[in-house]
């Protein structure tokens, strides 16, 4: 489902060029759940951005399904995202001027799907927010906001879900509930899940764990296997 070949990202800074990622080769199968872990500045979020086509690599290739992202312009990559990808972010990224229901409807409306309201309502029921449809983000707790974000991510039934520190802004108990919800939906929908996290407990729930250090993959193993 996701393949990278010799992926690198280099940025120019005031003191010279800086390699954020070097020689990343990855193969992620459909339906897999993969955690990318590493310390701050190890390049996790950059890798996530490249895999999702939010940014372009300095060298190497990213394939999403059968699309080679480097070949596409920004609008082309947006089209791929609309077709294949869902996102969950640490900071939820809900549109503050829209209600919970309207936030979830948004990707459906962008895709031009019929009955966006019906599907969005279903998903919000699924994440347990049926009482909160008309609430605005600022009227919801952190956990509730993240559940709206999860509903928004799954509502288009994407093939791949990218999650960036989905529990980073939440307390342990709420985080635990969000993890349950995320994996539950992942299994229901058969989505490929790529998540970036500091949270070892969360990483352990994934089938595979990729560790990054200073922009290189230092381990890439199935959970439960020995190094």
């Amino acid at each position, binding site marked *: 489902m996701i393949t990278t070949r010799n992926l690198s990202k280099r940025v120019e800074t005031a003191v010279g060029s800086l390699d954020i990622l070097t020689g990343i080769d990855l193969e992620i199968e459909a339906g897999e759940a993969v955690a990318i872990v590493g310390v701050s500045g190890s390049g996790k979020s950059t890798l996530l951005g490249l895999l999702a086509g*939010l940014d372009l690599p300095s060298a190497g290739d990213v394939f999403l399904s059968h699309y080679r992202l480097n070949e596409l312009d*920004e609008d082309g990559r947006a089209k791929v995202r609309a077709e294949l990808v869902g*996102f969950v972010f640490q*900071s939820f*990224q809900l*549109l503050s001027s*829209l209600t919970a229901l309207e936030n979830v409807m948004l990707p459906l*409306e*962008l895709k031009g799907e019929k009955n966006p309201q019906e599907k969005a309502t279903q998903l919000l029921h699924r994440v347990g927010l049926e009482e909160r449809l008309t609430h605005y983000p600022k009227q919801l707790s952190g956990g509730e906001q993240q559940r709206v974000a999860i509903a928004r991510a799954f509502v288009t039934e994407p093939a791949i879900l990218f999650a960036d520190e989905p529990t980073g*802004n939440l307390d342990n108990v709420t985080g635990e509930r969000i993890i349950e919800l995320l994996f539950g939906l992942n299994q229901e929908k058969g989505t490929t899940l790529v998540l970036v996290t500091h949270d070892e407990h969360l990483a352990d729930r994934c089938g595979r764990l990729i560790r990054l250090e200073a922009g290189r993959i230092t381990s890439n193993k199935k959970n439960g296997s020995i190094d």
Partner: protein
Amino acid sequence: MRWTLAMRLLVRNWRSGEQRILVAALVIAVAASTTIGFFTDRLGRGMENQSADFLGADLALVSAHPVNASWLHRARVEGLQALETLEFASMVVGNDDLLLSSVKAVQDGFPLRGKLKTARAPFAADAVTDALPQAGEAWAAPQVLTTLGLEVGDSIDVGEYPFIITRVITFEPGQVRDPLGVAPRLLIRMTDVPATGVVQPGSRLSWQYLFAGSDNNIAAYRRWLEPQLESGHELIGVKEGRRAVGSALERAERYLGLSVLAAIILAGVAVAMAAKRYSERHYDTSAMLRCLGASQKDLLGLYIPQLMVMGIIASAIGCLLGWVAQFGLLYLLADLLPASTVSAHFWPVWAGFSTGMITLAGFALPPIIRLKAVPPLRVLRRDLLPLPLRAWLVYGAALVAIVLVMWRYTDSWPLTLSVLAGGIGLVALLSLIAWLLLLMSQRLNTRVGVAWRFGLNSLWRRARSSISQIIAFGLTLMAMAIVTLVRTDLMTTWQRQLPADVPNHFAINVLPHQVTGFQTFMGEKNIDTSQLYPMIRGRLVTINTLPVREAVTKEARKNNALNRELNLTWTSKLQEDNHIEAGRWWVPEDTGKALVSVESQLANRLGIALGDTLGFSVGGQQFSAEVASIRSVQWDSFQPNFYMVFPPQVIDKFPATYMASFYLSQEQKSLLRTLVGQYPAITVLELDQVIEQVTKIFRQVTLTVEYVLLFTLLAGFTVLFAALQSSQDDRLYEGALLRTLGGSRAQLRAGHLAEFCALGVLAGLLAAMGTECLAWVLYSEVLHLDYHFHWLLWLIMPAVGALLIGVAGFWGTREVVERSPMLLLRNQQG
């Protein structure tokens, strides 16, 4: 689908209050434009109506012969009212005495515009009337009665026919054109003319054809008539007929145009600032939408329709407000407005609406377009910004909008483009000066207290945005200052022109042996009297020895000055309101030399230059004089003024009568009876009515000017608030940070106050510089007022800036210290 989504987003965003400032700014721009459009249109036409009251018609044709009857027929076919009047000079007889009178014969319906005023006795209180003399009746000017010693009810002979005087006529529309050229009036019916037997072949007659009707019909008729006019025909429209108020009205019209322009451009700046902030607040949304798969086109498809709908709604509200507001203004001015109500035209709505849409497109579109360039990676890295728009797009769009709006108000490409070029140069210069001012204020930094240091640092840290804020505030203060300044100077100029004791009477036909007696009489009664000028009736017959009709252009041949006798005078002292434009005024050695000073407009029209030799004919005697100076004359000053002025001892051999102007208060009016009783030959012309009319128009213009000023100020305030809003997000974040680091509320507030006061002082200094430059250009090139340096401005502007921006900024940033820092930081991070 996109459309529905866009509208849904618009409604949702509206609920959250995000676009309100943008819409408010736009509403003000449109409301200002529409109100002023409606108001000036109606008032302008109202004022033209008043000028028409002056003229007695919307259009008058003066001719020495009866015109082709088909001309009047044509006017009636075109939906105009048309009347003919006849004027002739005749010796009238009353009480066995003779008097040269100017007889006017009129038809029913006269005058077409304005009203006659009559009284029961000379110098008694008068009143408006709709009536006309009946058959066999005559209405006489007070001078006719006083000179001939008649009373109302007595008989007066015109030619072979005895008329009964039934009223005294005190004001007659159409008579003010040349009060000195007219012998005292006698008004009779047209149908009585044949009975007098005065009108014979060869008689000197003046036919006046009066027309009235709608603007369009008058304009169409005028277009049809003009090509057929011959020499000896003179066409007088409302504008030509209002010489006394002409310059005031023209200046006022230019001023109103200027203020509307200032209001719209200011509101445009506010719209641009609000749109920029709106755009910045939508970076995250745009990034998120891009992340969810929206293409750049999708984003434009979402935002541009929102902008358009906002524009349409705001423009509609603006038009509606403008429409309502002009009723308010008309109500407030009801006493001054002409009773004949002028209906509203539709064009101000259309103009206001298009102003709104053009302003929106020019000022708000560029920042909105920038939204499509927001990188989707911003969802992971909030520091990522869209690439800045190309400068030509941002400024180009605004310039196009300004040019379009400006062109509409000035209706002149050269003026628009030169003002624009000047404006661009000014902004560039102002930016440089703003930067230098900022640099200087930074130097002060180490010598001030902590609050000021925080404030000044804050300005310096955001140097780019500070410079644009200084310019925005500076331009706002400048627009306010210039509009106020011009208003004050316009008023002063008008007031100087028409002080309370402006001469309201002219005494003419004072005989040479009466001069001393007249002066003594006026002196004894403490009546403020002008110099007595000799008046000699003469014709201009040659220019450089060529007969005058051959010497001038075909166009100039129609000039009145060639068709009638001119008043010639001599004096050694230049009149106060005259100004030598070329050549020089008399020195003592010029006494007795054949020199002449010519009024500049006449010189222009007839192509007379310095050094030319002019030939005159006075009472059949010819003489010539060399043009020694060209002189501008302020015709609306109500002082005695002359086209031709000679040095002493050149024309004093010709028989002359003398004239003077003087002021009489209402209580002193009875002195006129004594004066006329002592010197029956003296004719006194009362100008009260004319002056009252002129004053009334000035008052109207003054009020209009003040209302227009109000809109400019309002637009200025929107800029102020939009600018404060634009840096609000940064300030909130910084304030929260400082508070978490232990800064107290009082420290923060003092810092903000210092920052805004400094901003205000800098903007005020900039505004003072800009105002001086712009005022100089405007005064000399557009408004034709005297320019003088406004030193007070340099003290007031920085103070006003500090006060206004300090208070507004302090109030606008109170949220910074009131909101929880925790909440702010979390929001900023998230």
